[in-house]
C-alpha cells in the first residue's frame, strides 16, 4: 500500500483535531482533540519513518507518547479541579485570565 495514504489520513485526523480544539467548548472534548492531533503527528512520523527507511520517526513517536501521557496527567487534573470549583467543564467559562 502506498505510504502516502497514511499521510493523508494523518492530515485528516490533525484537521479534525484542530477543528475540535477551536470549535468545541467542553474541556474534555477539547482535550481529546488535542490527543487526536498528537496521534495524527505520531502517524505521520511513523509513515515518514517507513518511507525513508530509518527509525528516527518511530523514535520521535515514542517521545511524543511519553509527552502525551504526561500531558494527560496534568491536563486531566486541571479539568477535574476546574469542574469541581465551577461545576462546568466549558473552556469559555474559564476566561478570567485577562486584563
Amino acid at each position, binding site marked *: 500500500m502506498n505510504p502516502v495514504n497514511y499521510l493523508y489520513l494523518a492530515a485528516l485526523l490533525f484537521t479534525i483535531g484542530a477543528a475540535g480544539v477551536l470549535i468545541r467548548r467542553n474541556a474534555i472534548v*477539547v482535550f481529546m482533540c488535542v490527543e487526536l492531533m498528537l496521534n495524527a503527528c505520531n502517524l505521520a512520523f511513523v509513515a515518514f519513518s517507513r518511507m525513508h527507511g530509518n527509525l528516527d520517526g518511530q523514535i520521535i513517536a515514542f517521545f511524543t507518547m511519553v509527552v502525551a501521557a504526561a500531558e494527560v496527567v496534568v491536563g486531566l487534573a486541571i479539568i477535574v479541579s476546574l469542574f469541581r470549583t465551577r461545576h462546568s467543564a466549558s*473552556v*469559555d467559562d474559564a476566561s478570567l*485570565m*485577562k486584563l
Partner: protein
Amino acid sequence: MENLIALLVAAPLLGAAVLLCGGRRLDRVGHWIGTALAAASFVVGVVLFGAMLGYDAEARTMRQHLYSWIPVEGFQGDIAFQLDQLSMTFVLLITGVGTLIHIYSIGYMEHDERRRRFFGYLNLFLAAMLLLVVADNYLLLYFGWEGVGLASYLLIGFWQHKPSAATAAKKAFIVNRVGDMGLSIAIMLMFTTFGTFAFGPVLEATGETSEGKMTAIGLMLLLAACGKSAQVPLQSWLGDAMEGPTPVSALIHAATMVTAGVYLITRSGAIFNAAPDAQTAVVAVGAVTLLFGAIVGCAKDDIKKALAGSTMSQIGYMILAAGLGPIGYAFAIMHLVTHGFFKAGLFLGAGSVMHGMNDEVDMRKYGGLRKYMPVTFVTFGLGYLAIIGFPGLSGFFSKDKIIEAAFASGGAQGWILGTVTLLGAGITAYYMTRVMILTFFGEKRWQPAPDPDKTASVEPGIEVHPGEMPHPHESPRSMTIPMIVLAFGSVFAGGFFSIGDRFVNWLEPVTQFDHPHPPISVPVITGMTVAVLLAGVAIAYLQYGRKPVPVVAPRGSFVTRAARRDLLQDDFNHVVLVRGGEHLTRSLVYVDHTLVDGVVNGTAATVGGLSGRLRKLQNGYARTYAVSMFGGTAILIAATLLMRAV
C-alpha cells in the same frame, strides 16, 4: 624660608574658620583675633620680603609645593605656591592695607552686633586674595578667584536685611560669574593647548603656538579681568557694591578684588605679548573704562559712589598700562600699589565722614566739615592730592608714567591713548576736587536725620533720632590711625618707588621692561599733565567753590542725568540682556511646550491608543489564543514553503 608661603594664606584662613565656626562666645574677642591674624600674615609677608631681598634679582622666585590636589595622569593639579617679585608686591599690599582696614573696622563696626562675622568674612577675603596671588598655576588661581567672588558677595550683602544690599551682593556675584566663565574657558584652552596650567610651562611656551589660540586665551583672560576689575562691559556691579560697609569698599577697591584683574593680565603678560590683537582689546577696554568711570564719578552725589567711579577709572589706567606690554606692566603695578594707598585712605576717610554725619552719604548735605574733622580732612586731602596726581605725591609719579607709556605705544594708537589718559587725568582732578569742596569746604548744608522707618540707608547699630541734626566729630583713634598711615603711603610711596626706578627694577625680572620712548619729550608730557590737572581743579572750583551748592541736585543736562544713572549701564543691561534673556527663555518655553512636549505626548498617545486596541486580543478565551496560535503556525509554515519555493 619657602615653607612660610603657605602661612601667608593659612593665617587669615584660620581666622575665618575660627570666627565663622566659633559662635557667639567669640563675640567679644572676634575682632582682635581677625586683626591679629591679618597682621600675622603681614608679618610673614615682611619676613619673606626681607629674605627675598637677600637673593639675586634673577633668583628671587620662591616655591613651595604643599600637596598634589588632583594627581591624575596627564592632569596635574597642585596646591603649590610661587612667590616672585610680582606676587610679593601684591602680598605686601593686600596684607598691609588689609590689616589697616581690619584695625579701622574695629572702630567702624563697633556698634554692629554681627562684628565677629564681619571680621570672619574680611579674613576670608584676604585668604582668598592671597591664594590668588601666590598660586603657581592657573587652577589654584581660579580657586582663589572664586573665593574672592564669594567673600565679596558675603561682604557686600553684609547688611542683608536691607533689600538693596542683598540685591547689590547678588548683582556683584552674577556679573562676576560672567567674568569667571572667561577665566575657566581660558584655563581649559590652556590645558588643551599646553597640556598643563602651571605658570612656568604655560608662559614659556607661548611663542610656540599659533597666534590665534593666544588671542583666544588672551580675550578670555580679558573677560575675566573685566568681571573682577569692573571694566566695561562688566562694570555695573561696582557702584552698587557700595551697599556694603565702608571698610569693605576700601578693601575691594584698594587691596583685594578689583586688583585681581590687573594681576591676571600682568601675570599672563607672555600670553598677551604673543597676541597683539588681544593686547589692543585690553588697551581699548582700559581706555573706555577710564573715561566711563571718570564721567560717572563727576555726576554722583553719593560720596562712596563718586569714589567708586574713580576706582573704575583708575583701574582703567592700570588695565590700559598692562595692555601696552612690557613698557606698561611695571607702571600698571606701581599705579596699583599707590592707588591702593590713596584709595583705601579716601574710602576710610569717607567712612569716617559718614560716621560723623549719621551715615549720610549725599555730599550735597555735607559742607564745611574741615573744622569738625581735622584728621579726616588732612588725610582725605592728602589722598585727594595723591589721586589727582599733584606733583610730588604718589599718584603723580605712577599716573605720569602711564601717560608717558601710553604716548610711547606708537603711531595713532599712541596719540589716542595719550590724549585719553591726559583727559582722564583732567576729569579725575575735576571730580575729586568736587568731592573735596562739597564735603569739607563751603557752608554747612547739614540736614536733620531721616526717619529710619522711611529710609533703608541707615546702617544698623547706630542710633539715629529722627529730626536730629548731625553732630560731626572726629572718629575714634582706631579709625584715624589707619587713615594716617595710609596718608603717609599716599604721599611718599610714589616718590620712594620712582627714585632710581626702584620699582621697575624690582619687577623687571618677572614682567620684563622696555623703556618707553614717547614721541614728545617727557618734561612736556609732565607739563601737560599738570596743566590739565590744574584746569580740572579750576573748573571744579568755579562750579562748586564760588557759589552756594544746592542741597537738592539740579536737574542738570542730559549728559549729567545719564552719568547719574551710571551712563545708562543698568538700562542697557536691562534692555539688552534682561529683556533679551526673557524673550529667549519665553520662546524656548514655547518651543518646549509645543514641539518637545508635542512629540513626547504624541508618541505616548499613539502607543497608548495602539495598546488599547491590542489589549482587546487578550480576551481570556483559550480558544481565541488557540486560533492565533494556529494562524501563526500556518503563516510560518506558509512563509517557509514560499521561501523554499522561491
